[in-house]
């Protein structure tokens, strides 16, 4: 994103976010392999979240401490989800 005085172009970021919403919607309506569609839909969600976090929350220009505070709980949530798979998803 082109920056103005060190800050991102907020309107350009918004345009990308809208485009990703439309892309996610389009993928959800496409026929074909459902698992591929789900993967693409979540990829667009992750991309949108990153755009908001890096540009609107200014994580791009923040210190390492704040970066760590932001990243660690996300890793915990991912770990929690995967750790529950044997009990709920792979149960016999």
């Amino acid at each position: 994103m082109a920056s103005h005085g060190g800050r991102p172009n907020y309107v350009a970021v918004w345009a990308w976010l809208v485009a990703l919403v439309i892309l996610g919607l389009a993928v959800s309506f496409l026929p074909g392999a459902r698992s591929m569609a789900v993967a693409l839909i979540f990829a667009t969600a992750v991309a949108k979240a990153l755009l908001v976090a890096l540009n609107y929350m200014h994580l791009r220009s923040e210190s390492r401490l704040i970066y760590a505070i932001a990243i660690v709980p996300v890793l915990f949530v991912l770990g929690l989800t995967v750790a529950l798979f044997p009990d709920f998803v792979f149960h016999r």
Partner: protein
Amino acid sequence: MATRAEAQAIPGILPGKVGVWWFLASEVMLFGGLIASYVVFRLGSAGWSTESAHLSVPIAAVNTLVLLTSSLTMVQAFAAVEGGDQPRLRMHLGLTILLGLTFLGIKAFEYTFEIRAGFTPGAGIFWSFYYTMTGLHALHVLAGIVVNTLLFVRAGRGTRNWHQVELAGLYWHLVDIVWIFLFPLLYLT
């Protein structure tokens, strides 16, 4: 002799910003726990997509665009603070509040429509998750609207609360990010 409690500021970091990020970290765990539960429940059983098919994707898509736009107006309010532009700060805070209220209004309409069709929170495990996750998110949106309204009023009185706009913005963007994940989880899959 009066003493005043002092805390060493972390060099280079705005006062309160670390505290807000710690709070946001707890919010990530709150919604992340709900989302993790939803994902493992859904992957482990059948019939969920049949239930989620009753949700309205167009209404939720409009609500997603409303919330994304409110993030833009919120960060534009922050940009106005950096530029020392009080009228522009008020305008963008006002727009953020209006968009937040629009989101809640659309959500209320959606809930009414679904409950009248018989899809209440007790209608099944999918609906329990749906109302818990979106209801908790809506409460967070409401809290953000209250904070933004306070800032809007203070900005109108000429109070210099510049850094609070950035801190409120961080919270508002996280609420937006939560919805960015709730929308595909509940509506698109």
